[in-house]
């Protein structure tokens, strides 16, 4: 059977199909016509999808895309304040699933759906997107903010890539040990000043049937690795993040051995217990837990009173380092794209974001510290931590989560998750992380 050569006969064939009569073949040129119709429809849809907001227009409302869906009410409060102060309101668009959020932001680099402002991570993740040339430089903003005291030189390195600054600090957090003050008071314990003190406290707690430290196998499985690593050999910690040291280095092995011994001594909670960690600390199921200062929000949401029910202290170095304590630090950036839909407004918002009035509301509503040193932190304990962290007694190191490239981090989180469940097999786990480390840096060098 041959296909009808003309449109008229094709039409007859299609009509036969519609009536259920003989229509054994679809004409070849029909496919072409459907294709043309398809392309036409796509063009119409594409035209409809063109971003109507950009192109040098103006707005009085910005959308702030973020991966911190739980902070929506805090974002909204700041959005209302910005409306009052600079005539620009802000609407948060919160995601709770990190991979989905990152995929959306990365896709926005190549599409017309672009965020006015968005949150991201410092370290390798920020380096990656800055080097793609899609992030707006904020060097002038930083220079001015440091000059008038709204930002600090100590924060600047986390936002500096090839000598230029990008984004501003959305949030900052120091990693400290939260402890149940009532348990400490009952047992006559004081926050430690040395690693030996901390171990002694843990021993006392174990003797009294209380689990000293919180532990988990999911996501935050890296916490004790980063703490023991940076407290033992901070140079090696940095070298690991830069790909210049191996995860099978004797220094790393020693840290894993120390961690294993602590697990064997019963210092840690069951990593499979998925009870809210703040609730575990409140109930006394565990006496201590290492988290960023943002965990203060979780504690107050458990109706615990800072200074009375719980306290915080810097975790002492495992190996003393010239009378300086290594403190893990994280700062999440608030960024804008080079070709943001409303570039001027977005930049104006970032300039306002670092001012004392914006930061005072943003930090104190969440019960966290601020990147602006002028901000008076309402919580005395947090204020003390912030003031101390700014002195020469403490040295800041980027949190493992940001300091480590994504493929290596993924392998490491899996390995640490396995380790906290079965701590005997850490050698093979370190080799697995090292393999990911080598693969990543071989590709990066190439």
């Amino acid at each position, binding site marked *: 059977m041959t296909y009808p050569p003309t*449109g*008229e006969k*094709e*039409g*007859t064939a*299609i*009509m036969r199909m*519609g009536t259920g009569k003989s229509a054994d073949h679809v004409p070849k040129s*029909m496919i072409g*016509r*459907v294709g043309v*119709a*398809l392309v*036409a*429809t*796509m063009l119409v*849809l594409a035209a409809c999808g063109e971003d109507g907001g950009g192109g040098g227009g103006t707005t009085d409302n910005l959308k702030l895309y973020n991966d911190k869906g739980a902070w929506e009410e805090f974002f909204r409060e700041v959005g209302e304040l910005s409306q009052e102060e600079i005539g620009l309101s802000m609407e948060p668009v919160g995601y709770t699933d990190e*991979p*989905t959020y*990152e*995929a959306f932001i*990365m*896709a926005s*680099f190549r599409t017309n759906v672009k965020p006015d402002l968005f949150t991201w991570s410092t370290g390798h993740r920020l380096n*990656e*997107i800055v080097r*793609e040339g899609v992030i707006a430089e904020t060097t002038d903003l930083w220079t001015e903010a440091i000059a008038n005291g709204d930002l600090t030189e100590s924060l600047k390195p986390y936002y500096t890539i090839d000598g230029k600054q990008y984004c501003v600090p959305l949030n900052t957090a120091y990693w400290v040990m939260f402890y149940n003050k009532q348990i400490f008071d009952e047992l006559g314990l004081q926050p430690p000043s040395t690693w030996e003190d901390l171990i002694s406290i843990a021993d006392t707690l174990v003797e009294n049937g209380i689990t000293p430290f919180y532990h988990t*196998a*999911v*996501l935050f*499985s890296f916490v004790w690795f980063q703490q023991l690593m940076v407290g033992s050999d901070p140079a090696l910690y940095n070298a690991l993040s830069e790909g210049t040291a191996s995860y099978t280095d004797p220094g790393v092995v020693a840290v894993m051995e120390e961690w294993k011994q602590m697990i064997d001594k019963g210092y840690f909670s*069951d*990593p*499979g*217990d*998925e*009870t809210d960690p703040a609730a575990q600390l409140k109930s006394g199921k565990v006496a201590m837990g290492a988290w960023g200062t943002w965990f203060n929000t979780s504690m107050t949401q458990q109706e615990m009173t800072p200074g009375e029910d719980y306290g915080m202290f810097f975790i002492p170095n495992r190996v003393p380092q010239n009378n300086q304590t290594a403190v893990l630090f994280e700062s999440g950036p608030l960024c804008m794209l080079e070709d943001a839909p409303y570039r001027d407004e977005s930049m104006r918002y970032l300039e306002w974001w670092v001012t004392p009035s914006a930061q005072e509301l943003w930090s104190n509503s969440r019960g966290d510290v601020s990147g602006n040193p002028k901000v008076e932190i309402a919580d005395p304990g947090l204020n003390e931590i912030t003031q101390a962290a700014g002195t020469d007694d403490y040295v800041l190191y980027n949190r493992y989560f940001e300091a480590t490239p*994504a*493929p290596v981090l*993924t392998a490491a989180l*899996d*390995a640490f*998750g*396995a*380790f*906290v*469940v*079965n701590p005997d097999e850490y050698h093979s*786990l370190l080799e*697995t992380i090292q393999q990911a480390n080598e693969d990543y840096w071989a*590709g990066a060098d190439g």
Partner: protein
Amino acid sequence: MARSRTLAPRSGFGFVAPAVLLVAALLYAPFLWTLYLGFHEYDGLRPAEFIGLDNFTRLLEDPALATSVRNTLMWAVGGTAIPVALGLLIAVLSYGIRGGTWYRLPFLLPYALSGAGLAVIWGFILQSGGAFNDVLGALGLPGADTRFLLEDPQNTLVMIMAFTWQQVGVNALLFMVGLQSIPQEPIEAARLDGASGWRLFRHITWPLLAPLTTVVIGLSLVATLKTFDIVWVTTQGGPGRSSEVLAVTMYRNAFVAHEYGYGSAVALALTVVAGAVSFGYLRRQLSAKRGAA
């Protein structure tokens, strides 16, 4: 006349185009994009770089693949056999008895839950020191201290148990439909010949239910081979990738590690496995029936 005969089908293209566009955009384009990425290295930022079969050789050399494949097979076998067998049992036992609907209804209720909802509930029950441990302890049974979600392979087994809890009701419902639709004459004839109970089921009811069983098992196989939500929400494939299945391996590599090319290669491998198993199973069943006919 000729004019109208020509225009009618042409205008028909316009009506068809949106549907074709949707299918092309939502089904063909993602599949072709995944196929393309499977042969490239792509981190979502830099342009994709063609690397031939490297992603697939890397997949075969990945030490976690063996665990992922093993767990996927456990899901395919356990997640199919147990819910189908229990569903059949419930349907047969409750068929034709007074109040049978009320007997089956509770089994159907969990089907209203989403996969993620199921995972949240069972994660709470199965976590270390959770409700399941408490119940075992209260009854004086062994396992009160067992870390169900942490130890391998029992973490996969208990998740299959949770999946069974959800799936058994709908299987029972499908078998009920099958039981109601099979002809009564052979059953009556067998009864007159003195067959009852197990003999009646084994030699009469079961063969008559075979076409439906083929469909139920086929659907279940495909569903379990692409298991994702319950595993991701409950354990995220951990600890240490011990409960990972192929769909989680794909998601983890593509969206967590930002290795979209490698993740696409896993997706293609999963597609081939699911397609091959489904095709093989259905072909075998259908050819067996043709042979019998």
